[in-house]
């Protein structure tokens, strides 16, 4: 089972019926010159990359921007149509007065599989006690959290909120809560490793590529910024394959990771096993 743990379905045509919604999404996400694509096209690309399932991430920006990049209900709509291809996460704006009710509905009624939060875009620090009831709700339902971490390309999304140092308090106080700090928290790769070495409930993903080619970037991160065996020795169960589609094409990123000299066992973890553990499947 190959899982892409980081996909934003903003151009899935199932949820692209309204031009004004699409414009809002594109502006808030900071992506341009792309158009909606069909399920057949999405599946063709997943098949070509030999990717079985993708985790779909919404983002609730109610108090910051007056809307959502993708809503929980839109995620539910996609999942209901294609349950074998996609795994749906929820999102909630922590500043909403009804944040806990939104989250309760997402887990209890919409049956979504985890929570997406973006401290940079939603403008909160992950160690702000405002978040504690939300973390508690995730723990209650045994749902993982996919946090944005590190550089965010989205407009009005400051990196200061997403420095790994701000996640440590939550990792300490919620040791049963599985949390992914996405994008290897790039450029804070060392800080990301610092958290992972101490907190086994902290995961990351590979969705980073802000310079150079897929091969060059993956080579530099995993073979130069780390020693060639660093991931193999220390983080074999905490790094998930994630693409950040539609910013980066999944099959190209996957191929670059396949080219790295990791053992087959570690590659199997990266490309699926770790995502299953993060999702809590097989517990």
């Amino acid at each position, binding site marked *: 089972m190959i899982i892409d743990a980081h996909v934003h379905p903003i151009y899935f045509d199932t949820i692209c019926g309204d031009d004004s919604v699409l414009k809002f999404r594109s502006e808030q996400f900071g992506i341009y010159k792309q158009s909606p694509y069909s399920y057949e096209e999405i599946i063709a690309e997943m098949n070509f990359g030999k990717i079985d399932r993708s985790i779909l991430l919404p983002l609730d920006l109610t108090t910051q921007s007056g809307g959502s990049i993708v809503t929980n209900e839109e995620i539910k709509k996609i999942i209901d149509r294609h349950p074998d291809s996609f795994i749906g996460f929820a999102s909630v704006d922590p500043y909403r007065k009804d944040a806990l009710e939104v989250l309760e509905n997402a887990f209890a009624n919409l049956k979504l599989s985890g929570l997406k939060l973006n401290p940079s875009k939603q403008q909160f620090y992950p160690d702000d006690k405002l978040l504690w009831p939300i973390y508690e709700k995730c723990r209650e339902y045994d749902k993982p959290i996919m946090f944005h971490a590190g550089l965010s390309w989205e407009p009005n999304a400051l990196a200061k909120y997403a420095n790994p140092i701000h996640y440590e308090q939550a990792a300490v106080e919620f040791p049963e809560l599985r949390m992914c700090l996405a994008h290897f928290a790039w450029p804070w790769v060392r800080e990301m490793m610092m958290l992972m070495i101490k907190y086994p409930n902290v995961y990351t993903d590979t969705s980073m590529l802000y310079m*150079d080619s897929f091969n060059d970037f993956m080579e530099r991160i995993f073979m130069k910024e780390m020693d060639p065996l660093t991931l193999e020795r220390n983080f074999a169960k905490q790094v998930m394959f994630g693409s950040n589609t539609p910013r980066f094409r999944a099959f190209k990123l996957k191929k670059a990771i396949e080219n790295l000299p990791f053992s087959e066992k570690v590659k199997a973890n990266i490309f699926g096993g770790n995502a299953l553990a993060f999702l809590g499947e097989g517990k």
Partner: protein
Amino acid sequence: MNKLVSISCMSEQAVQMINITEEVHRIVAESGITNGLVAVITAHTTTGITINEPLECVETDILQRLEKLVPDDDKYIHAHFLPSYGATSNNSPGHLKSMLLGNSCMFPIQESRMVCGSAQHIYLVECDGPQTRKVYIQMMGE
């Protein structure tokens, strides 16, 4: 008289030859144009339009030669994040293969039929797939 029709093709591979000859024949036959010219033009910068013989061995040689001329793993300056897209395309090989192939072809129309040799087939060549692509069929004549 001019008539423009567009067709959509979905590729399933990164680089793939898609034979669109029959579709162009049908569009020309239904156009109402008796004598003139038809141009087949891709709407993209990472696809090509080329004419060749529809033999599997020929198609294989074309694809292998393209890969040899423009290897995927070479060093390209276009391999970087594009702020104007908010995305990284890393698709220089697609642009360069497209440049080698050209973006269009033309055939005469005579007695409501596209005139071409029996070995001449029209290919849309995907160079950065899988994707859905658009091809224009522009017919001019009387």
